[in-house]
């Protein structure tokens, strides 16, 4: 009884992380992107806490707390504040239409499943399925980074990619150093947010204005 409940709850929480990844993908406003990302971090916190309980690994509660406090609350608030202070456009510029992006995301999930399930045939069912979901979340994070044009959404894409990594780390039974890794990543993200504000980075640097590209590359005569 408990075994199936543990299995189902892990599935539920990791599927919620994946679902939130999709929600990040179809937002048209920055505020919505932040909310969806916060939701994903809460789902990750729930997944980590559940793993901590069911694997009897109390250190994973720390990972859960970091996911909840830092990525679920502090980072979205900081992003909101940066958007207001730097006066960044509140709408999201997308490279492809929402529909095409969602289709691509579905493709990535299938890819991740097809990639992970065959090679992990000998691992525990729970581990391999969590790993497939985690890889999907990582790939969708990439997709967000590629298809969203400005720096803020790129950073959110990176953070959601990192949520996928943490999901993989907590899902692998007995993995050491998970807490240290989540601290290291939080440091990285804090650094990114700080850098964005400090350097007033609003957009990505690719532009169709050839003049600015040439000056950037230092190749102008």
């Amino acid at each position: 009884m408990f075994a199936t409940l543990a299995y189902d709850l892990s599935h539920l929480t990791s599927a919620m992380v994946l679902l939130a990844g999709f929600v990040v993908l179809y937002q048209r406003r920055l505020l919505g992107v932040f909310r969806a990302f916060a939701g994903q971090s809460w789902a990750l916190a729930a997944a980590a806490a559940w793993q901590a309980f069911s694997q009897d690994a109390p250190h994973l509660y720390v990972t859960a707390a970091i996911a909840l406090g830092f990525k679920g609350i502090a980072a979205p608030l900081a992003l909101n504040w940066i958007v207001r202070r730097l006066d960044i456009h509140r709408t999201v510029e997308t490279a492809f239409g929402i529909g095409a992006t969602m289709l691509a995301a579905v493709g990535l999930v299938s890819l991740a499943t097809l990639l992970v399930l065959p090679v992990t045939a000998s691992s525990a069912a729970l581990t391999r399925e969590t790993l497939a979901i985690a890889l999907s979340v990582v790939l969708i994070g990439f997709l967000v980074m590629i298809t969203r044009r400005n720096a803020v959404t790129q950073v959110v894409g990176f953070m959601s990619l990192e949520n996928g990594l943490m999901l993989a780390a907590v899902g692998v039974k007995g993995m050491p150093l998970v807490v240290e890794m989540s601290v290291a990543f939080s440091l990285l993200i804090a650094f990114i947010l700080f850098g964005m504000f400090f350097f007033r980075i609003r957009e990505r640097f690719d532009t169709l204005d050839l003049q600015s590209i040439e000056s950037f590359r230092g190749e102008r005569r």
Partner: protein
Amino acid sequence: MNPLPLILGIPLAGAAMLAFIPEHRLGGWLNAGASGLTLLASLLLLVLDTPAATQVAFIDDFNIYLVVLTSFVAFTAAWFSAGYIAHEAGIGRLTPAYLRLYHAMYQVLSFAMLLALVANNIGVMWAAVELATLTTVVMVSLYRTRPSLEAAWKYFILGSVGIALALFGTILVYLAAQKAMGPGMEALAWSSLMAEAPNFEPELLNLAFVFLLIGYGTKVGLVPLHAWLPDAHAEGPTPISAVLSGLLLNVALYAVLRFKMLLAANGDALAPGPLLIIMGLSSLFVASLMLYRRRDIKRLFAFSSIEHMGIITFAFGMGGPLANFAGLLHMALHSVTKSAIFYAVGLAAQARGSQQIDQIHGLTASHPALGWGLVAATAAIAGLPPFGLFMSEFVLVSSTFPRAPLLGVALLLGLLIGFGGLALRLHGIAFGEAERDRKPLVGSLLPLYAHLLLVLIAGAFLPGPLVAWFNSVAESLG
């Protein structure tokens, strides 16, 4: 006595101290002093018995020479940096607060690279590479100009994505090892992973290696993951370009090669050779072709670094004792030569007040010692005899032809294209009528010539222990 705590401790203590030194001249020389002490501590490794592996750190035939190499180049770069920074502060390009940050970060970077090399834990190694990335991002953005911030941001985002993928690969390696080794720290330690590698699950190991190759490969600057590298080299301070090219690329490559050893020891896992050969050759060709149209001297040599990383990756892709030996030798000599080039480039760019090649024109006429030093170093990097890189490239080419003639032709063609590009650009830099200097040339030429001497000696003679290490590593690389 175990010198490892000293090797890791001196840079950390140095960083803490330098963060509070307001005077930049003093800071510059203390920075060089701390790096010198680190070098002395790492030289102890050569004299004393190899320390036993602990949970944190270990020394074997592979990382011992890389530790010495890293602390040596970090020392000469810090020496060069003291003069370089004094000049930059003199013309007001950098303010005292930034210089304090710079010197402290320099030591943190040394610490991170040395930790990545000696770490006996794939998780610690990953975190050390992340730390090295963060510190170099700070250094690249030091001038706070628009191009430098753009370069730092690009490096940051691409580097972070690479690091994230490397972590996924690391988790997969743990998973592959878990069946054989059970849960716990042991399954992350290199010393026990190497022993148990034959029992790992090969499919998981394959998947892990792909993620690790792409992840750490981004930091090596392999095409098509190289986009950050030329910008980061061109826009940061020149001592950092020397450290980036000479050391950090090697550290990332070291990580890839360690994992390749696991695959080689496993036996059932896929042979990573073709992957490495494809990435190596594409880096070689793309970077060689890019050399022709460069107008910025630091960008020119940054592309040359991508080219050489391509050659080295190709060598390890070919595998076998000879090609691996050539790859290891090339890794060491490229590091020494390329940092020497950046020392010369830094001095020249400061004297002329520009990084543009047409402003540096005629360097041998106005500054013979510097100009000919740069010519000699460029000849060395282009693979001309009597320098050591000729030997490693010769061994690689001659060992490739009998095994895979077509790949040998491709390699030779890539090398020739790169040689042509460098020769063409070098002609513009070194010869012809001299441009006018904007500032007097200051700073020591000793680091440049010390490196040149080493590369020259390596062309004629390699010390016995080094050859023994290379041979033993070449064997376990498969």
